[in-house]
């Protein structure tokens, strides 16, 4: 395990272990998040990546962007593969090494849910990072179980009618030692959480909100701003769960109405016919209010 001091945890890392030349869209939140995670984890890391945008844009032969060992698996089994890597290291008495399983929201919450649940339950020493862009962006913006209420995707053209699955809580309820959520705008916080997670033995889960300019319908330069609004509205609570206890909740002193967040994104445009907010906006505000109350934001 890494020996980490408070100074180590708070240091911002920029090593470009996830290098330029990848094929992500301009302003991609996931590409930004992947680099922040890789740089925070450092050279002694193995990246296991499920199928999805990240794998597609970062790994085409012969010029992958990864400057650390990289293992591509299927949509559904990245956790199982990472578990295997960890078991292999244990069996060969090698290591220690940071093993990070990574996937998008589709492979995490839908297709790969059984394998991630198994990995948590078996207690492998793996950090699972979920890049949450709230739909299957890789295959053309189809609804996933992380798609928020009201958002338009190609499979929910009138707006999604279900609420977002709350995976951080589900993960914590497996009894794993560390769960955290983060966004790409606060890179210091994000890297601190990666390093904190890697300093803990056992399965860990990190949930990163990574805006998708293409799927969310916003300009690439707004990626960071939108993350900030997601936090400030209460729609994306940022917290840690250490040994089952919610701690370190990011307080939002100046709460903003969800409308400000929704209006910037094309996927919510249908909620503002002729400029007026529809009833769904009030329901989304209610979701934000529930988050604020639940996590005491």
């Amino acid at each position, binding site marked *: 395990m890494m020996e980490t001091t408070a100074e180590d945890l708070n240091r911002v890392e920029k090593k*470009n272990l996830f290098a330029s030349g990848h094929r992500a869209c301009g302003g991609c939140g996931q590409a930004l998040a992947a680099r922040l995670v890789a740089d925070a984890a450092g050279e002694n890391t193995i990246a296991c990546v499920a199928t999805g945008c990240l794998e597609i844009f970062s790994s085409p032969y012969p010029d992958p962007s990864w400057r650390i060992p990289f293992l591509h698996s299927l949509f559904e089994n990245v956790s199982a593969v990472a578990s295997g890597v960890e078991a292999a290291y244990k069996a060969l008495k090698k290591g220690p090494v940071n093993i990070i399983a990574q996937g998008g929201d589709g492979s995490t919450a839908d297709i790969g849910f059984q394998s991630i649940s198994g990995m948590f339950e078996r207690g492998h020493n793996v950090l699972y990072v979920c890049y949450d862009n709230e739909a299957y962006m890789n295959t053309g913006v189809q609804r996933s179980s992380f798609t928020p209420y009201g958002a338009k995707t190609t499979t929910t053209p009138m707006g999604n009618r279900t609420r977002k699955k709350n995976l951080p809580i589900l993960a914590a309820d497996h009894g794993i030692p560390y769960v955290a959520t983060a966004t790409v705008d606060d890179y210091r916080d994000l890297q601190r959480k990666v390093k904190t997670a890697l300093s803990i033995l056992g399965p860990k889960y990190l949930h990163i909100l990574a805006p998708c300019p293409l799927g969310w319908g916003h300009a690439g330069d707004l990626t960071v701003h939108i993350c900030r609004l997601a936090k400030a509205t209460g729609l994306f609570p940022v917290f840690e769960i250490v040994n089952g206890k919610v701690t370190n909740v990011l307080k939002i002193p100046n709460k903003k109405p969800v409308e400000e967040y929704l209006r910037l994104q094309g996927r919510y445009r249908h909620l503002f016919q002729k400029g007026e907010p529809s009833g769904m906006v009030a329901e989304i505000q209610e979701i934000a209010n529930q988050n604020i109350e639940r996590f005491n934001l």
Partner: protein
Amino acid sequence: MEKLPLGLALDLRKVVPYKTGSWRTMKPLYIMQTPPCTHSCPINNDIRGFLRVLADKQDYEEAWHILTRTNPFPATCGRVCPHPCEDGCNRRDYDTPLAINSSERGVGDYGLEHSLEHRKEVLTPRKEKVAVVGSGPAGLACAFHLAKRGFGVKVFEAAREPGGMMRYGIPAYRLPKDIMNREIEAILRLGVELECSVKVGVNIALDQLRQDYQAVFLGLGAQMGAAVNIPGEEAKNVFTGVGFLKDINSGKIPEVGRNVVVVGGGNTAMDCARVAKRLGADVSIVYRRTRVEMPAITAEIEEAMEERIMFRYHTNPVKIISDEDRVVGLLCVQMELKEADASGRARPLPIPGSESVLPADTVIMATGQEVDYDGLDNIGKRDNKWISTDEYLMTSLARVFAGGDAVLGQETVSAAIGQGLRAAAAIEDYLEGNVESSLASPPVVYFKDMNSYYYTRKKRFSKEAIPVHERLKSFNEIYPAFAPGEIIDEAGRCLSCGLCFNCRNCLMYCPDNAVNLHPATGKYEFDYDFCKGCGLCVKECPCHYIQLTLEK
């Protein structure tokens, strides 16, 4: 050929990364912008520059050198300038503007305390010599810049000591004479010659100077009180504003008596009133319009009011009443304001039958100043009052340049310094035969262009003026200086509008790692091989140092 490991068709070590820069339609650029403080400063001081040096390195000496690149009088301007820079400060739209003026004063004082020397920009002396007429802010600033650029400069001053209106027009509670003297000495140490008690046009002809020197700069100032022509003016104890201040500042303290009436609403009127108050008199200011139309600096009006000077608006003097040649009162009439005149201010008209007498032992007519054209009558004039110049500050006479109050009309010390600076550049261009050397400055950055998320709110630091009863006992300065640490803290509030301050946002937020820190220069650079032009760095740059331009 090297044998590849089994299963590999390509040697990964020899692969050139895919250059995603070809996707780009928009291109980010690091472009330094003009901050609004510099833009609104008549001298265009590099305010952001000196504040950043203070905040980042606590380096007062470097800060002084940055300020004196343009302004040889930081300690003086730090006291008397009405600081339009603070009105421009983008922090105004965020919380409160920076205390730039007080910081400048602190840096200027540091320079004096440590006897810092100005740096010459051109080390080899040039053969051309320039005569500067008048040692006020315009003349000395012009001499300063010419001397720095290697020219031989001689300054001719009509009065016994240099400084012009800074010496004879500004009371010591606003500008201690010692401060100004030492700043002038530092200019003279650059090799500027100074000859006092020589009035050009009287003791020496302007044409003589034109023969002996390759160029002449006229910084005559507006030293003569304008006549008002009201009956009784010739009585004793009737002064012009400038005459009164000149007496005071030369050490001749007139007997003002108990009641003093000052006529006028400009800075000279305020200064006269506040000086008379310090001499122990009851002072009222008589002005024919209202406070809104008063041309004086707001702070001076407010301070005069704090010092319990009575303001009588809508009042105009008609006649000075005297008894045995000594003033006893001022007959005034009430005015009403009609539609605006050519100056844009409401036109006052007397109300018949509203005359009344103000008791007065001294009357000071501070109703305007004029240029003393004694022996210089052949120069071209504007409105028959001020010297007219072309855009390069050259007068109707070839090789004769002019600036300061004599050209602008009554203006501030800073405006005069700014004119001196520009005239020096124009003279250099003229003597070198350059058509135009000055480049257009980059556009001004305003708060709406900036990303305020990254700044923290912090109130402007200020120090209370000393209490009024203490002020009135002496001619000491009324505002205490900032301590060095306080200036550093205040400098830390600078938003650095339009110039990088190493926040690392572009470096950290680029999803394509297309921003690199150059190891040698310490500056950020775009790697256009990989930049996709998403504009994230532009949006997240707090100070608008990055701009998106069209990819060619």
